[in-house]
């Protein structure tokens, strides 16, 4: 039997090879853009939101910039830096992407930065926030100029707000903790540790005592032993974050169940579109900081996503990525205007000359739905300008599935409430 069958198998194999190889030779005037995101794995929910945002933004421009057809290539990071780097390199080598946008994890950013630099593919608006990304970027700005402006600043710039808010609340007497004992928790990733470090610094600076710092794998969903430990130690303030939906919602839910009476900061809960479905009333009184869908346009966007994709998008992963991809489209349009052609060199040039210098910004006037303005300057790079009139997250407190802004003072909708 052997030989004939074997020949057939080999023939099939070669055909598949040729088909795959043939992809590289596609038609002219096509710009392939890689969208990097965790489409599978524990953060797949964010990947889903990315996908919806990109598809909607592409639909709005009919996937066309000038006479270029934009083709989206999904690059799955699988929440793992090594696999992400491989997938990205493959997208460049095999599928011929000329530019990339978005990204979720910091650890992925750290590894993909090198790939982008290696192939000189400009990448815009990756979310990897941690200091490591910035340190690496600043160590060689020239090389990493291909890793363009980030979509999320280092935690210290935003996460410190929580502690500021808490201290303010204590100062004006709305909350009277028995003792200033805090604990820090977080997912065991660059982001989790980086944010945890930000809380720690801010807490220690304002006279808090830290009981413990606990970092757990992003797939963990059983926190009862940990939370019980915190409770029995009398921890009054628990600050932490996770980007993985199951992990953080379980944490919040179990925090309430275990009977903790203190304040819980669950940074990132609202980044998950349908978080309330998973936490239920356990999320009452929890603090979080997420951007708000304030404008009519933003609310319309959320409705559209709900209608088209069947889930409630989160302003942070869905909304920010929507703004990110639209800003990227603006960059493409500008590049086309300046150079008359779209490829990795011209896009990179625009990014370096126009975006990173603060010349090209994207704001409410362009139709941004989340932030007032996305603006990068040489001083802030790779972060954006952070501030209430540019990029800013207010602090909210949840009640019955809705968030009310309690900080900063001028945006305040409600006062802080104690449990």
């Amino acid at each position, binding site marked *: 039997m052997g030989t004939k069958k074997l020949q057939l198998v080999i023939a099939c194999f070669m055909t598949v090879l040729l088909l795959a190889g043939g992809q590289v030779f596609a038609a002219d005037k096509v710009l392939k853009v890689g969208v990097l995101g965790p489409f599978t794995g524990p953060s797949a929910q964010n990947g889903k939101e990315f996908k919806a945002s990109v598809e909607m933004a592409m639909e709005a421009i009919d996937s066309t910039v000038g006479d270029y057809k934009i083709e989206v290539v999904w690059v799955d990071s699988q929440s793992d830096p090594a696999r992400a780097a491989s997938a990205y390199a493959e997208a460049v080598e095999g599928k011929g992407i000329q530019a990339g946008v978005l990204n979720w994890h910091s650890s992925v950013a750290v590894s993909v930065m090198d790939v982008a630099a290696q192939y000189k593919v400009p990448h815009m608006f990756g979310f990897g926030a941690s200091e490591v990304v910035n340190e690496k970027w600043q160590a060689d700005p020239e090389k990493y100029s291909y890793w363009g402006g980030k979509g999320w600043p280092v935690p210290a710039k935003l996460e410190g707000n929580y502690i500021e808010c808490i201290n303010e609340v204590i100062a004006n007497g709305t909350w009277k903790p028995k003792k200033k004992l805090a604990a820090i928790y977080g997912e065991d990733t660059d982001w989790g540790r980086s944010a945890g470090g930000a809380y720690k610094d801010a807490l220690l600076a304002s006279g808090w005592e830290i009981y413990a710092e606990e970092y757990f794998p992003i797939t963990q969903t059983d926190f009862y032993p940990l939370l019980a430990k915190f409770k029995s130690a009398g921890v009054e303030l628990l600050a932490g974050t996770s980007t993985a939906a199951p992990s953080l*919602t379980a944490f919040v839910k179990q925090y309430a169940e275990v009977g903790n009476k203190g304040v819980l900061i669950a940074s990132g809960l609202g980044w998950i579109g349908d978080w309330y479905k998973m936490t239920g009333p356990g999320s009452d009184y929890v603090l979080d900081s997420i951007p708000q869908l304030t404008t009519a346009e933003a609310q319309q966007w959320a409705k559209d996503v709900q209608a088209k994709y069947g889930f409630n998008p989160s302003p942070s992963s869905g909304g920010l990525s929507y703004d990110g991809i639209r800003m990227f489209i603006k960059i493409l349009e500008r590049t086309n205007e300046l150079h008359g052609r779209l490829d990795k060199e011209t896009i990179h040039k625009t990014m370096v000359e126009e975006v990173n210098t603060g010349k090209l910004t994207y704001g409410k006037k362009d139709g941004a739905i989340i932030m007032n303005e996305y603006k990068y300057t040489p001083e802030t790079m790779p972060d954006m300008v952070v501030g209430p009139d540019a990029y800013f997250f207010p602090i909210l407190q949840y009640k019955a599935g809705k968030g009310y802004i309690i900080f900063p003072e001028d945006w305040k909708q409600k006062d802080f409430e104690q449990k």
Partner: protein
Amino acid sequence: MSKHNMSVTLTWLKTAPGLSIVISIAVAVAATIDAGPYLLVNMVVTGGMLALVATGLTLMLGVLNIPMFAHGEYFMIGSLTAYYIFTPISEFILEHPDSWLVTFGPFIAIIGALIGGAIAGVISEKLVFGPLRRRSTDNWVMNSFLLTVGVSVLLINLHQLIFGADFKGIVGYWQGMPISIADVYVSKDRVMSFLISAVIVALFYLFMTYTRTGMAIRAVSQDITGAEIVGIDIEKIVLLTISLACALAAVAGGSLLFMYPSYPTVGLEPLYMAWFVVILSGLGNILGAVAGAFMVALLKVITMEYVGAGWDFVVPSALIMLILIFKPSGIFGSDVRGVLDK
């Protein structure tokens, strides 16, 4: 207590099971005094759920000699089934808060998970294990092990292909305030999941000990030829055992949906833990597996308390390896016949 009983107890205490049970209880008591009663409560609740997953695994390994690597995926099937049954029920409950479903809806979901797991088990036997058994007899343990590895990868990725990789979770099964035991708050869901697992494990124990079919399963596990010559229909018993084992894993997945949302690789952690239990306690009896489950739960909780989050694989697995060096057949394993590669 007579003198004779005393000496029997003393000898038992010197055996591996006696020693380890006494040490475990002592450690649990010491840690409870040191840290607080919540530790004990957590250990009991975690142990209950581990017992459920581990008994299914023991059954597969002990009766059929299948070192099941896909056990966690039946856990996942259970949680998935429960999710798709309970989601419409919970929506209905939201609109009709007085309905009988408020109390009994979760049971429907959990029983659904049980049935789902049993069906999955039957399908696996018909499509996978049966054909292997008919074709290969030598090197059975390793071949079936690799087969279950394949099944595991297959089920994980089928889940991802069909249902997507996102986390399908629920807020909780039973509403209401958590129950307070000695200033330790335990949510109704956890109490119920513990009760469910206790009832199921007890029923299962009674079934295996006293019923004709249960005895037939034990007979098959001890001597398959002997079972055949007394007239036990091996095929039927094997089918029943596989579906029972899968149902046990699935019911664990179903009743723990509030804590482990369903996603493709949700089964990995229960799988690791169940294997810890089975290897630690050895292949002996169900009671051994239950005791082992509480020991592993204790290890896990203690690690979490004194070492920190994220260490709960390192410390227990290191300890179990240590125990294995001194007691290769596990603590309660008097007889490891059949699993040795002879």
